């Protein structure tokens, strides 16, 4: 059953895209702009994971042990959250009353800044990501193999997504986030601290990107400073596909992109992998301009 194996490959790739896509979609939801630096926060997440696993945490716990792995994830998520909040504070907040285009260009600038600072600090050499999850096959038959890494990638992504859903739907700050995304002005008149909500959104989104970075490094153990560009782009596509601003949509979009990519890669047309993935995006947007789960919005003029 080659089909089954490709399905598992696709789901584990899609789960990582989904984690990154959530960050895009949440920030779009509250601020109505695309944070192009998000893919690079994901890259920083990988590097933080690398340094945490090989040196910081390695002083206390051996690489691959459970406490080490948990700490690596937490450190990476925390530092990425701090980075996201800092970017918002320094680059986007001063421009909040400016046209959206200005913020968009700034986001591209921040993205390039992170990429090339990364090359300067980490060097352009790819590094091998440490095996923070010891890789053993769980199911191993002639036709299908599932190993621990794939299982952790898929299950951890699911847990994080459910946690996010819980935060957004059940907590006070989540309600505030939804209010801000409905109508910023009305929300602020109701006494919601808009800045606090926006900072919180960046913190959550960037933490997810950090976790995504560590998972990506674990699954594909070779990291470099420009690694965030392509997954970032794919995740952005996933977010648009699912309906930007819609959280379950981002998860669904990530899954679809991961599956399409994997199934195309496994055929003779593998050279057209990205072309086909993007063609599907265009086709869906022709029939559903607001994405699969997105709601139609009427622009007020």
């Amino acid at each position: 059953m080659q089909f089954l194996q490709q399905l598992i490959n696709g789901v584990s790739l899609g789960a990582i895209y989904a984690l990154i896509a959530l960050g895009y979609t949440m920030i779009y939801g509250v601020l109505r702009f695309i944070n192009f630096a998000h893919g690079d926060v994901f890259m920083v997440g990988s590097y933080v994971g690398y340094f945490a696993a090989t040196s910081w945490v390695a002083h206390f716990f051996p690489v691959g042990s459970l406490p080490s792995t948990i700490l690596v994830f937490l450190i990476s998520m925390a530092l990425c959250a701090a980075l996201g909040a800092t970017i918002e504070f320094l680059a986007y907040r001063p421009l909040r009353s400016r046209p959206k285009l200005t913020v968009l260009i700034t986001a591209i600038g921040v993205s390039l800044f992170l990429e090339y600072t990364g090359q300067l600090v980490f060097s352009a050499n790819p590094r091998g990501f440490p095996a923070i999850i010891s890789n053993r096959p769980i199911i191993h038959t002639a036709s299908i193999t599932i190993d621990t890494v794939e299982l952790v990638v898929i299950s951890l992504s699911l847990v994080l997504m459910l946690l996010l859903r819980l935060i957004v739907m059940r907590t006070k700050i989540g309600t505030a986030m939804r209010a801000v995304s409905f109508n910023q002005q009305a929300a602020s008149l109701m006494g919601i601290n808009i800045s606090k909500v926006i900072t919180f959104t960046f913190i959550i989104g960037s933490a997810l990107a950090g976790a995504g970075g560590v998972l990506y490094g674990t699954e594909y153990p070779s990291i470099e400073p420009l690694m965030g560009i392509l997954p970032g782009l794919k995740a952005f596509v996933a977010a648009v596909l699912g309906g930007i601003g819609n959280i379950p949509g981002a998860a669904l979009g990530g899954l679809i992109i991961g599956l399409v990519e994997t199934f195309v890669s496994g055929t003779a047309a593998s050279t057209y992998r990205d072309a086909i993935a993007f063609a599907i995006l265009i086709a869906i947007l022709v029939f559903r301009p607001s994405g699969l789960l997105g709601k139609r919005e009427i622009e007020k003029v």
Partner: protein
Amino acid sequence: MKLRTVTFSPAISILAVVMAFSLFISSCKTAGGPAGNDIPVGEFASLTGGTATFGQSVHNGDVLAVEEINGAGGVLGKQLRLVTEDDQSKTEDAVASVQKLVNSDRVIAVLGEVASSRSMAGAPICQQAHVPMITPASTNEDVTKKGDYIFRICFIDPFQGQTMARFALNSLGKKRAAILTDVKQDYSVGLDEAFKNTFTFNGGVIVSEQSYSTGDKDFHAPLTSIKGANPEVIFVPGYYTEVSLIVRQARELGIDCPILGGDGWDSPELTKGAEKEFNNTFFSNHFATEDPDTTVQSFIKKYQDKYHAVPDAMAALGYDATRILADAIKRAGSTDSVALKNAIAGTKDFPGVTGRITIDKFRNASKPITIIKVVDGKFHFAQRIGPNGEALTPFQP
């Protein structure tokens, strides 16, 4: 109407003088060639990026050779001066690097690159400027077809692909092969074609052909397809960064047949963290450190003394390329571009670390090939094949 008197302000006249002077200097440079006490030799290499160890190794080999030559009095009474540019493993940057070397550093010859795509990007610039270029390790056939100023001192892809196909059939006795090619690299595509033709011509079957692109990290999908086709051997003619992930992921998916590759595998990074997974893999290469030949052993010793590391084939090729260039300058008696080009073309039986090197009429080197067997992350000598495909030594499994 009153005529206005025009006066130059002192600032403008100083500027004019400076400009005239700089024009004079630059025209002198164009006419005179290298006028100083040294001979500038350009080198473009991937010191960072996806194939960083290639560039670093070649650079180490180049530097070792230059120091040795200068220590022995240089050439034509002058010292060689190596001007190095890092192209970050990117084709665009290779173009910019060669342009800088040729137009601004005014080098008399260019050494580089390892990756065929980047050598082919730099070659037209050297050809147009009539600056001889020697690539130490670009094996794609088309590289030296860019013009009569472009040379190489390594074997070419068809030979490498043919050799690995015969190796799979004759030495390993495998009849069903799958191929996984990097479609973005001319090198990989060239090896793929040669392998496929020889393998099927001699009775083998290609059961699956899959591809990927440089920079990919996830190979589960093409590997799953390959596994479904049930091959006895897999040919992966890529570069080490991707190959390292491919072999790891192949073994994870339970593919345990032999995996073969070309000289793009030769890097200390190849097996890092995947020593076990790389057992039962073989690749064609330019030299083996276990070779008892005295030229090889003395090079290894010099290299280890300087860098405290075992040289790989790229370092050996860089070393050879630099020494062939110095030898050609000596024989030409000048750094004049036509004389130098003819002298490089006339290289015959040069005793290189990577074998005796003779430049043929297509400006390629004909020389033997070495097949390496990987055991627990270490590279061991497995077999040597001559330039016409004849086995020079028996296969040591």
